[in-house]
């Protein structure tokens, strides 16, 4: 049973990798789906826009330097339909997010999952491919 479940998950992940994840542009040409980074920061701006949402995080490094990161996410309607309401994102809140880094070298990523201070987790965007 456990093996079947693991096999099902493995197949699912494999298939997810070939199914298109964005409606309107190529994920893989823009982001490195193999490199998932983790960012802890403070929400500085939210763009609840189409074709994608953007969440901006101020991320402080060990030396105290703050860098702004932009994380692209599912369109607003998709987030809403997956149980991710707009008002859960509050400017000034500290969150931890995982993301696939942009191939253009900028501080941009395709957001995958966001964890809020109370431990709530939500998917921001698709699994990388």
């Amino acid at each position, binding site marked *: 049973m456990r093996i079947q479940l693991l096999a099902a998950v493995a197949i699912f992940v494999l298939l997810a990798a070939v199914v298109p994840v964005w409606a309107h542009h190529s994920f893989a040409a*823009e982001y490195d789906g193999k490199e998932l980074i983790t960012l802890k920061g403070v929400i500085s701006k939210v763009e609840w826009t189409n*074709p*994608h949402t953007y969440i901006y995080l101020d991320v402080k490094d060990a030396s105290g330097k703050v860098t702004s990161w932009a994380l692209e996410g599912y369109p607003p309607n998709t987030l809403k339909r997956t149980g991710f309401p707009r008002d859960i994102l509050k400017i000034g809140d500290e969150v931890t997010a995982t993301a696939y880094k942009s191939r253009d070298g900028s501080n941009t990523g395709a957001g995958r999952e966001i964890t809020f201070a109370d431990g709530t987790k939500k998917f921001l965007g698709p699994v990388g491919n």
Partner: protein
Amino acid sequence: MTRHLTGLLLILGGTLAIPAAAQYQRETLASTAAKAPNPNPMPRTADGRVDLSGTWQAGGVSINGEPGAPPLHPLPPAPVRPPARERIPYQDWAAARQKTFTVLDDPTSKCLLPGVPRIVGMPMPMEIVQTPKEVIILYESFRAWRRIPLDENLKHPDDLTPTWMGDSVGRWEGDTLVVDVTGFNDKTWLSGLGSIHTEKLHVLERYKPINYDTLLYEATVEDPGSLTKPWVTGSVLRRPIDVRIEEYECIENNPDNEHIQKAMEQQKRAGQK
């Protein structure tokens, strides 16, 4: 290097195509947490005609869930699978031209209309509005709509000018809605990267009700200008739970092509070093 880059982009762009079988399996797996099949019969109009009115969706995380995480409203398993995925049977010139495109050329990356049959596979819902004389399909994606007058002879108007979504006319064959689409421009893609066609494109669609939750969508694509034989594609349309189509203003905030352009230039520079 350029050839390598083009090759890479071809592979990357291929992810835009919808692998129908994979999509079916994904739906099935996602539905393992679903309830028993919906016992509701397919709705019918007062005169006994099957009624396709309602919201339908071909895929996407909102109905399929994430890997390892079921969707908010799981659907019963689909009792049918889409047509097997076929490679588009291009004539030599079209196959050669297909290789010249990058993902930046994809009309939908600029928020332009996807055409038919590509629009049907988008991971966003559409609404079918059925009346005795015509069927209207409203698509959330790309603000698209189609008006499909019903006519036994599938006769199109004589004054067609090529358009992105073409001209549709339909008729009932039993419970299946058959739609003939022609009058396309040559600016849309059929499916994946560089899947071009000519203005001779002609699509015959079949919307076959399987049960309350499920329509089987099949499209036979003909284009004597670019294909060597008809190409069959399709998907399984599901009736999502508690979903209505909403606004999707695609052009609002779309910096992706700029990012992709920069990424391509950087990869090119890295390759030249």
